[in-house]
């Protein structure tokens, strides 16, 4: 029995992970749609770990926007997130919201993943992808303090990957990568998966390529917390961006690198404090806009969602948010 002290937003994510192996509680089939037509092998020693954040980015955006609306109302987000029955009463039919998103955005979602595959192939890495069989890393369980559940999930995830013949994992979502690289070994005896982040694999190789962005742009880079402060990837994204011709990298005064400000979407915080999380997203977006950049580049699905929301709230429509993988893919093509 878990304690009543865990806020409802986090128990919602946790229940979904335990029941459906993803944070939204939807079917796994939805997650794998992005890879249709890419012909990624389902069995491979090296797999790309796609993660919830990128795979469900459309659904997550829709969910967050709904929850934020409720959180700003007199009801508050606690009850709807705790009781399924309350969701119906409020007209909060989540499965329906998700399927509407799917019908609408099937093509535009998960672009960062498609771009990642494209980049990996360009440098001669052909990753596998477990698709419906990809386990959830369970990071929100860890964040919530539900370590018994996290441990159980980690062991199952490990077994699932092992029985699929996986030896190397290419992580891309910072949270997932950190979990399977740094946390799993503490919970699994004899843990032997070789885990690397996407940037570790591509950076060196990419710098040998001719990289050219389709147009001249001012770009700023937002460091995701988990990537910069937990996985120490400070230089890689900057080396890549600086190597791309046509891109001028401009950074905020103080709040960059290890001192980058969190986008407000960290570790389930957005589910516990939906409205405050949006305020933090706006604050961070403002800091990044002060650089005068036309493109905000980052490398985390959570940050992308938050910064896009920040732009929307600030009613800025001449600046876009792109994942680093998308920028690289655009620069390799030309």
């Amino acid at each position: 029995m878990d304690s009543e002290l865990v806020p409802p937003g986090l128990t919602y994510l946790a229940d979904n992970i335990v029941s459906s192996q993803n944070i939204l509680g939807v079917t796994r089939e939805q997650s794998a749609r992005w890879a249709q037509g890419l012909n990624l092998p389902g069995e491979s020693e090296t797999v790309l770990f796609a993660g919830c954040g990128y795979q469900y980015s459309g659904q997550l955006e829709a969910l967050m926007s709904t929850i934020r609306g409720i959180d700003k109302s007199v009801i508050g987000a606690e009850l709807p997130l705790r009781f399924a029955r309350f969701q119906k009463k409020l007209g909060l039919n989540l499965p329906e919201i998700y399927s509407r998103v799917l019908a609408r955005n099937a093509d535009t979602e998960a672009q960062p993943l498609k771009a990642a595959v494209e980049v990996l192939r360009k440098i001669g890495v052909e990753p596998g992808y477990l698709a419906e069989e990809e386990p959830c890393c369970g990071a929100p369980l860890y964040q919530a303090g539900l370590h018994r559940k996290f441990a159980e999930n980690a062991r199952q995830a490990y077994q699932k990957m092992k029985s699929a013949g996986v030896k190397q994992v290419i992580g891309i979502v910072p949270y997932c990568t950190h979990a399977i690289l740094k946390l799993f070994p503490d919970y699994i005896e004899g843990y032997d998966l070789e885990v690397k982040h996407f940037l570790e694999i591509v950076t060196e190789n990419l710098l040998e390529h001719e990289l050219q962005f389709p147009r001249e742009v001012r770009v700023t880079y937002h460091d995701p917390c988990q990537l910069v402060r937990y996985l120490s990837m400070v230089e890689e994204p900057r080396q890549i961006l600086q190597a791309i011709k046509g891109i001028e990298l401009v950074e905020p005064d103080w709040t960059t690198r290890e001192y980058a400000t969190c986008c407000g979407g960290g570790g389930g915080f957005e589910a516990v404090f939906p409205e405050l999380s949006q305020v933090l997203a706006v604050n961070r977006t403002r800091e990044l806009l002060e650089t005068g950049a036309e493109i905000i580049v980052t490398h985390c699905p959570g940050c992308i969602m938050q910064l896009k929301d920040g732009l929307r709230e600030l009613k800025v429509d001449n600046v876009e948010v792109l994942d680093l993988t998308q920028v690289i893919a655009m620069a390799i093509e030309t």
Partner: protein
Amino acid sequence: MKKSSNFKDYKKEIMGATHDDRLRLALSRSIKSFRANIKDALEKFPHTIDMAEEVLEIKKKAIPRMEELARQAIETIEENRGKGYIARTADEALKIIADLIGTGKLIVKGKTMTGEEIGLREYLEEQGNEVYETDLGEFIIQKMGSRPMHITSPSIHVPREDVAHLFSKVIGQEISVDSDIAEIVAAARDFLREKFFQADIGISGSNVVTAETGTLYIIENEGNVRLSTGAPPVHIALVGMEKLVPTISDANKVAEVTWRYANYTIPSYVSMVSGPSKTGDIEKVTTYGAHGPKEFHVIFLDGGRTELAKHPVLRQALYCLRCGGCLYECPVFAVTAGHFGDKYFTGIGAVWSAIISGDIEKAASIAYTCLTCGRCKQRCPVKIDVPEMIIELRKSLAESG
């Protein structure tokens, strides 16, 4: 369902702060000047960064020995003709102090977070004493009937215009809202001036204490601590036991790193107090009670600290120098100030709430407000891993059911 409604109240408080424009204005001004100042201070004295590593080692060794160091300090302080006490709990500390002070006294008080922790001012007022906070920030919030919102800048949430407005009401001197800050400061100076010399008792905290010589270091800029601990006939100091280090040489390092990371190149004053005032000028006979206090009392507060020191992860909270740097880097604090916290603030405040005040529900609310983004750790001179502590705390909260 009681618990979730408490969380709801807390969230309401947090969101209220988030929508407070005056608060946001005051915070953004403070964060901006803090960052400029600390950059300047560390560039001017770059050795501080290595010294901070030494300080971490000093704290790592001293924290498991707190009790022993406190006893050694008390012995030394008593050799110096002062008096030392160990208080196991906040109530014990209050009782010791109340017994020393009694009632109907005029008290001038320097800023002490440990005092805040045990509710010292309110308690002394309840006992029928007249208490004046003399730190400008504390004075402002005392007069506002508010509570500190930052550990080194308690009135960080109040913009200058609001201070001018407040002083006009409480000091009885008209101060225009357009006044510059110097005029506002001068008004507080005039008001408090005579209190220092009328006071029966002066109260202070301390930033670091040496066991070997029984010396209290008190870092300040305003001069209010010098007056509070120098002018009245009695000086009472309340100190958390985690502030103890073995030697003067250790304490010098702790003090320098503390003020540097609190954004000062050098503070105006560092007082070192080891006993009551004395003179030997007449026939070389040592006589106690010259110009400074005749009595000197030091209360070392345990209040859960010795228990906390045994925890393999959470013990890091005791390394905290209370420089306050982390608060300026917390994205949540930047919109809520000390509403994200209790007696102590932000992520590290959750640990203090859980262990020191033992208020598990409050601690849970604070713990789940932390982003675990880790920027505080980056700023911390002794690299306290707040996210690691938060996860550990959540684990014990979540799996306690």
